[in-house]
């Protein structure tokens, strides 16, 4: 990104995308959303008109335009608008629904899924989308080990095999499973990529290019007119540190039930800002139209809302996602350093001590103004599989929650028992050998995370731990996460209803098993049981049975303290009233940000 900054003045990349002419009429196989139809999730959705531009903000620059090699939301928030898959999450309810597939069948034995594709639908450059694109994406990108693909882990079946994707005809594909795998429907919501544009970069298909070439495809240096998608928007402009512009895809197949092609807004502009406060100032000034609020924004925005023409949504809805700290249990492993520190970090009693120093009550009250919930598991609270429920989809009673109460005295006794004591009388606890123990806590420039870190730093220091908090750039932090550098990182992950979607995080060989990547080669008993439970939960269509497996898995995760969970804010949002259907925002989807499914349904009421 430094290189990009140096070239910033020259990198004004704004080019006309290579768009086709669009459809002459609504395709027969269009995806039609039932606006206003009672009994559907869309019953409160208003029909809109096309036109206008919606503005929002993003804290970070994207790192590229390649959906399948992206590991960060700063990229996927755009690539998820450029591409759609066979299946998707419903834009309002979040349930798994058909998208580019117009229907699918499951064989009686549950092992063969047959998808029927929409016919005569085109990529944004006017090239027909066929089964070949599905096979290319699945077989040659996602399952291709030469590709650094984030979603491969989610495709693995319990027996270690992958579904076999085959073409039946130009508009029919099958996925054959070796075993029943309930989450396959979530996993098959992968975004389709255009074979005619990208096959040339895959060594497997084009031996003239080196292995791994695809990982360097559709980077920020790629001319934007090379980008092709099937989603509602395509990137047409990018200014480093300034903005990303996306324009409607004339060949998008989504329509409203009045015959209007979606998306409604012609253009979507994401202003890249340095932090959330700047985003909020821009929202107040009308420079951006929607804004994901924090609790500290309420007293600023609430009194201004009517006068300035925006609405403030304050709800008690638990949000998806997790916020956590992780203790890097592989610290110094690659370098051959920090051996004793690594041993201590790998000791669960040490992590228990840290967990007892997390004052979540203060975090919720002071940081979230009481508008938050405690977390103890990696499955989002709204999920029907959340282990705080008594049964699948049941009420949240937290009857079997595994929690570590804020108890500094208990934390101190655990540290003492480990020999992490102040050996030299300088006021700070040392490693058992007497060597100094210094702990850095890193988070990005996010006011909520910074506030959490300051509370944590204070409590750690009060317990005698020499902890020091540092703010670092988000993309650098993500880099540290993958490189297993640093002591403690505070970050968050997106979440959904399906626990199996966390496979890349919580299984011992997962690409985001960031607290201990070495577990892949050296798993302990808990790691192995977690891996087993993830498979068992996926290997049944019996939701109650699956709930049982996932409950045990979440409890083990909590005991293991790999990711140590904090709090999650309840859903807050603000939007200008002229943005039609923005009032349908919920934890499931909003017009912007990481879960921008609602965007294509929003429109300018002033037109």
């Amino acid at each position: 990104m430094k290189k990009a900054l140096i070239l910033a003045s020259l990198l004004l990349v704004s080019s006309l995308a290579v768009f086709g002419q669009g459809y002459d009429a609504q395709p027969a196989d269009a995806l039609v959303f039932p606006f206003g139809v009672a009994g559907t999730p869309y019953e409160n959705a208003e029909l809109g008109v096309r036109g206008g531009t919606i503005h929002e903000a993003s804290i970070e620059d994207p790192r590229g335009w390649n959906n399948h090699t992206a590991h960060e939301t700063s990229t996927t928030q755009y690539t998820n608008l450029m591409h759609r898959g066979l299946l998707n999450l419903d834009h309002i309810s979040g349930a798994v629904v058909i998208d580019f597939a117009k229907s699918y069948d499951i064989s009686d034995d549950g092992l063969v899924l047959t998808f029927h594709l929409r016919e005569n639908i085109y990529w944004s450059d006017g090239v027909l989308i066929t089964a070949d694109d599905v096979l290319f994406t699945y077989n040659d990108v996602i399952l291709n080990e030469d590709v650094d693909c984030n979603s491969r882990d989610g495709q693995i079946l319990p027996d270690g095999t992958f579904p076999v994707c085959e073409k039946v005809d130009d508009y029919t594909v099958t996925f054959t499973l070796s075993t029943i795998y309930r989450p396959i429907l979530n996993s098959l919501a992968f975004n389709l990529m255009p074979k005619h544009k990208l096959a040339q970069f895959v060594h497997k298909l084009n031996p003239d290019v080196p292995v791994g070439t695809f990982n360097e495809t559709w980077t920020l240096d790629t001319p934007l007119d090379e980008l092709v998608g099937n989603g509602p928007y395509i990137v047409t402009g990018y200014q480093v540190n300034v903005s990303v512009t996306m324009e409607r895809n004339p060949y998008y197949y989504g329509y409203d039930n009045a015959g209007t092609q979606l998306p409604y807004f012609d253009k979507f502009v994401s202003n890249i800002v340095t932090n959330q406060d700047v985003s909020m100032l821009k929202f107040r000034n009308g420079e951006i139209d929607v804004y994901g609020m924090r609790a500290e924004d309420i007293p600023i925005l609430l009194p201004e809302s009517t006068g300035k023409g925006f609405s403030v949504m304050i709800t008690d809805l638990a949000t998806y996602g997790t916020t956590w700290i992780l203790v890097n249990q592989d610290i110094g492993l690659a370098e051959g350093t920090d051996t004793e520190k690594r041993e201590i970090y790998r000791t669960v009693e040490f992590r228990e001590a840290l967990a007892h120093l997390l004052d979540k009550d203060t975090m919720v009250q002071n940081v979230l103004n009481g508008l938050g919930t405690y977390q103890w598991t990696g499955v989002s609270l709204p999920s029907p599989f959340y282990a705080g429920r008594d049964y699948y989809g049941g009420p949240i009673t937290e009857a079997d929650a595994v929690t570590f109460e804020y108890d500094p005295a208990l934390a101190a006794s655990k540290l003492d028992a480990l020999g992490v004591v102040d050996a030299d009388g300088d006021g700070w606890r040392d490693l058992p050998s007497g060597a100094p123990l210094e702990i850095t806590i890193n988070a990005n420039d996010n006011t909520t995370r910074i506030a959490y870190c300051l509370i944590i730093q204070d409590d750690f220091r009060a317990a005698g731990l020499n902890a020091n908090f540092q703010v670092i750039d988000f993309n650098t932090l993500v880099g540290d996460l993958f490189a297993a550098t640093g002591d403690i990182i505070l970050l968050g992950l997106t979440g959904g209803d399906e626990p199996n979607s966390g496979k890349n995080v919580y299984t011992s060989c997962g690409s985001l098993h960031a607290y201990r990547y070495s577990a892949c080669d050296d798993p302990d008993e808990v790691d192995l049981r977690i891996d087993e439970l993830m498979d068992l939960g996926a290997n049944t269509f019996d939701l109650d049975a699956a709930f049982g497996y996932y409950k045990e898995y979440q409890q083990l995760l909590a005991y293991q303290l790999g990711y140590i969970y904090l709090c999650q804010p309840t859903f807050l949002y603000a939007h200008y009233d002229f943005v039609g259907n923005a009032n349908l925002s919920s934890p499931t989807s909003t017009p912007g940000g990481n879960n921008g499914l609602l965007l294509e349904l929003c429109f300018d009421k002033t037109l």
Partner: protein
Amino acid sequence: MKRNGLRALGLTTCAVVLVSLIGFAAVDLNDIVANELIPEISKAAGLALVADYTLKTVEELETLEATGRTDGIRLAANRALFSLNAREMELYAMENDALVALAVAGDQDAANMWFFKNRASYKRPELVEEYLLTVEADTLAIAAGKVLGGFYVPGSPLGAKTEDELVELAKNGESLGLRVAAATALTAFWNTGQPLTIDQTRKEILSVVLVYPELALAYQGYLAYLFSL
């Protein structure tokens, strides 16, 4: 916190002849802002004209800010310049000490920005109320009051007050900051419910402006909203 000295003078002499454009049949904001002598009403019109004023040149606005005939013209020009000069982001980039120095010297925008940047330390109404007990600069008290008003506004999850409580606080709150907080919340409350017409609001301003300046401020904010509709 002492009251506005000019207001006290007006009250004691009782010699002010209140002249207003009350009863004006149609709302011509440019006419109001050019001729209205009651500051609160003039400013309300000015606030409603800020967007229009941003279409003027910086030179024009600087002249109007300095020498505009009425409070409303000068306020509209000031707010338009604030927007055009990107003053907000300039202030945001400043360190806290610099903002406080400006605030103490009378820069209300700097005071507002200082409180905005530090609001994470004042996430509950009682913390702002405590701050108001010791703050000395009026600008900082006003800035804090505006944020506190955000807690007091009906619908707030923390600290919401009723309209009656807010009116009483705007009239008789112990400090400038508390009275500004009440005014902020009242304006927001009235914007939502629109209980009064333009003419009724003007009358209310005239009835309270010499006695309860912050209550008049609340009506001013509401009137600005009505003017903008």
